């Protein structure tokens, strides 16, 4: 048990920011993001305790987080893809807002990103924001590397279009 704890602790420290960002960019609320991320790591820890073979913890965490976000929107009957205009205002308590209030352009990108379809959002977050290798994104999306490259390219183009429109 102490070894598993130690191993999980390292994984938590390494990926908690990435998973938080991933969830926050989708739910746009600090409180909801915290809840979903907590649940993500709790499920991961339970899998660790059950000695499940987790070869790629990051992919595993992203997968759980993705499912939780989908479940959250399904439950709340909310639509993931919202237009930039109707995007909810960022949580007033979240640190980013304070930091980015002066940078309207960054806020605009964030809103445009959340207005993209889920597949494009993921591709942009994973490739450009977190710097995941194409092979890993392909694995996460269940696509070939070639198809993934095309998807990343299209996703960036879609975001560029959204930003121009906004």
């Amino acid at each position, binding site marked *: *048990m102490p070894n598993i*704890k130690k191993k*999980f*602790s390292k994984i*938590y*420290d390494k990926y*908690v*920011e990435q998973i*938080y*960002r991933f969830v*926050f*960019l989708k739910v746009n609320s*600090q409180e909801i*993001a*915290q809840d979903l*991320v*907590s649940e993500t*790591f*709790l499920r991961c*820890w339970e899998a660790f*305790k059950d000695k499940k073979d987790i070869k790629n913890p990051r992919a595993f965490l992203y997968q759980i987080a993705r499912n939780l976000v989908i479940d959250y929107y399904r439950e709340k009957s909310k639509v993931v893809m919202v237009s930039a205009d109707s995007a909810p205002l960022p949580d007033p308590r*979240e*640190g*980013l807002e304070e*930091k*980015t209030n002066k*940078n309207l*352009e*960054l806020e605009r*990108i*964030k809103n445009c*990103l959340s207005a993209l379809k889920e597949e494009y959002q993921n591709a*942009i977050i994973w490739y*450009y*924001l977190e710097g995941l290798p194409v092979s890993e994104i392909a694995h996460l999306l269940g696509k070939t590397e070639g198809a993934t490259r095309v998807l990343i390219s299209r996703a*960036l183009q879609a*975001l*560029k279009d959204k*930003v*121009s429109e906004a």
Partner: protein
Amino acid sequence: MTEKELIAKIKQLRQIKPEKEWVVLTKEKILGSEPKIRWLGLFDYQLRPILAGALMALIIFGLFSVSQNSLPGDILYPLKKISEKGQAIFVSKSEEPKVKLEWVNKRLAELKEVALKNQTKKLATALRETENALAEAAKDLVKSENIAQKEVVEKAKEMIVKKEEIEKTLGVEIGGEENENFTKVLAEKLIKDLENRNLAKEQKEILEKAKKDFENGDYQEALLKVLELSYNNE
């Protein structure tokens, strides 16, 4: 905005970070609470047989303690006897006559209590217990080589006094054959012991009288005399 500028802006979203306090607390909540629960479970699991054992020991100890005040015929009385016999295991051979006399005295005390409480149903059992104790004490006295110890003499004397007192109260003779045998053995042993001792003139006279009583079959009287001598001679 060029593609390059857009990618640079996307990278700036890395500023989004969870609160440090929340990060620490969440980790503690996930990892910290779990082992505690597990340890508690394990502790409980390990403790269960120990607790059950301790509880059993406590119940047995309690029953044995309560049984010490029980009287013949009571449910817990056998426990009292078991407890006595258990204690006797650690007694040396030379001490056995003293212990057996002590038991006779205890049985006599119980008999007295039964009589005083007017518990007629228990009377027969109490009498039988006393007789058995007397018979057992007599057996030990026969085997014993050295019975002229001060404590043995004192206990024997105490026993005779108690017995006489109860016999008067109840109007019955305690022991019958067992008592006669016990008195005879004890008197005989003490007479032999006194014969090998240096006695004063007066003491020799009492011993002679005791011997005559013994020859005449008055073992009780003979015993009373030698007990007095043995006690004073110590």
